[in-house]
């Protein structure tokens, strides 16, 4: 990101999307994020003194979309922090530190992009799909190639999304042309999204997988891609206090045993760097 300060942004809208909320923050002069980057958000008013005298720390969210001078975030009410943000109305103020972290990296050669998401974790795949459609620069200073891979001529980006139930499956509207599955069978294939992924890889394994979702899903994606020798990039979630490398709270173990901070080395990691994706139950919510 450029600039050393969090910014006070206005809520443009807060829309229901099935079981989720789509929080739209007006940010006409903000720096454009690269797909996969995230923001630390906190309501300017009544952030604290909720259930259990929380929330206290800002919460990390993937940037779901960046368009028309707005940044969009997909929220699910799972704790006092997300609850407060879900309640926000148009015109209210939000503190935002963004964009942060290292996003998705360009795929090598002409491998087809396969976007695989689960639950509220589908968010960064939306801005990635937008970017792939436009083939625009990633603006990610750490990217080796300043341009995202353009999709192969005439081939739409394949999007595979899994949800727990039908209410949550409404979130699929965030992306276009998605194949959807659900745990309870209420929408699409009944079963995990890795069923759809395995089918796609059977069809054409010359692909790069971009995935984000709950840890168990990401671990299944990682293991499947490892077995099929398909490169994958995983956007991880971790509890973090700051988002800019100060607290050392958001680490994940990497191959070889060293810990990596999700906020500054990620949140997107090459799957090959990880032995496995561990559940991060300690995340402030």
């Amino acid at each position: 990101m450029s600039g050393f300060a969090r910014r006070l942004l206005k809520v443009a809208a807060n829309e229901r999307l099935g079981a989720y909320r789509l929080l739209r923050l007006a940010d006409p002069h903000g720096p454009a994020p690269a797909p996969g980057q995230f923001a630390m958000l906190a309501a300017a008013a009544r952030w604290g003194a909720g259930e259990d005298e929380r929330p206290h720390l800002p919460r990390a969210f993937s940037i779901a979309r960046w368009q028309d001078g707005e940044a969009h975030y997909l929220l699910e009410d799972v704790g006092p922090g997300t609850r407060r943000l879900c309640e926000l109305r148009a015109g209210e103020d939000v503190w935002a530190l963004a964009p942060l972290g290292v996003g998705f990296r360009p795929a090598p050669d002409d491998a087809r992009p396969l976007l695989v998401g689960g639950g509220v974790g589908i968010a960064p795949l939306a801005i990635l799909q937008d970017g792939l459609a436009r083939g625009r620069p990633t603006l990610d200073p750490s990217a080796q190639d300043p341009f995202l891979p353009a999709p192969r001529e005439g081939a739409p980006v394949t999007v595979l999304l899994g949800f727990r139930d039908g209410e949550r499956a409404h979130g699929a509207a965030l992306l276009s042309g998605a194949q959807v599955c659900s745990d309870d069978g209420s929408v699409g294939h009944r079963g995990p999204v890795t069923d759809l992924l395995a089918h796609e890889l059977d069809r054409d394994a010359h692909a790069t997988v971009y995935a984000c979702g709950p840890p168990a899903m990401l671990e299944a994606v990682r293991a499947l891609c490892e077995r099929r020798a398909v490169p994958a990039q995983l956007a991880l979630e971790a509890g973090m206090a700051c988002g800019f490398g100060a607290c050392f709270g958001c680490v994940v173990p990497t191959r070889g045993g060293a810990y990596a901070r999700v906020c500054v080395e990620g949140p997107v990691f090459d799957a090959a760097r990880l032995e496995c994706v561990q559940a991060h139950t300690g995340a402030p919510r």
Partner: protein
Amino acid sequence: MSAEGRGHDRPDGERSSPSQRPDGAPSAVSFCGLRLAHPIVNASGTFDALAALAVFGEDLRTEFPFAAFVSKTITLAPRAGNPPPRLWEAPAGLINSIGLPNRGLEGYLEHDLPALAALLAAHGARPAVPLITNVMGSTAAEIATLLAACEERPEIAAVELNVSCPNVRTGLDIGADPAQLQAVLEQTRGHLRKPLIVKLTPNTADVAACAHAAQQGGADAISLINTLRARAPAPRGPAGAPRAWLGGGTGGLSGPAIRLVALAQVAAAAARVSIPVIGMGGVQSARHARALLDAGASLVAVGTESFRDPTAASRIARELAEGRA
């Protein structure tokens, strides 16, 4: 001075302040022979200046928020830190179980120190920011080695000794027992001519006695409070058995939840010593900083609040200078 009667965290417009200037410009303060642009520094381990430089770019250099920079704790050998999860959001605060990850003394001196010195050097109108290196050892010999290494490097202006470390023989925190603390300092103090700040632990029966012991052992200043030992509530595992939540078992509590504990301990410690005190614990505003200064602190450190707002220290220094405390 008594801690009683100071326990109410309230504004007091009548109290004058040595660092208050009518023009709002922060006035410099002197600390252990170091000249600081204002009285706000960081708490060790709450701001990684090199990571922040990579994230925020050159603005961090021009708008560096702290008047002195305190490094995270450096140990003789590299440490990976504790397994995750490392954080738990507490009522009005945070429990951390980070485990002091660092690349070890050699890695720090070789890689971090030159980069930190470059970042903290005078830049345009901003004066140089003194670097205070925080170290921790589990024996007197380890501490002596760390101090001697810091003495040799001109980039380091002062050393802060973290004594919240278990003695390898007794298992007790070195800083929790006044007699042990004084003895360790007396054995090691001669290895450093630069100012030595002792970062006291609040997890002790008598923090004022520890403060006095630090002074007797040769400390030039003390800093407090470190985090309070705390444990996140244990959720039941799949088998119904309670289990520790944080990867390190227990952790340290920080943030507004400990602010008034800090105020009491800073007041009690400051009353027992004649050396300067760096006060910290839950500071979020100039009003909170002013309370610690009034309790006897010479400098105030900002920690957890920087997680919420990376420029919090600049805001607090500015508000203090403008008398908005």
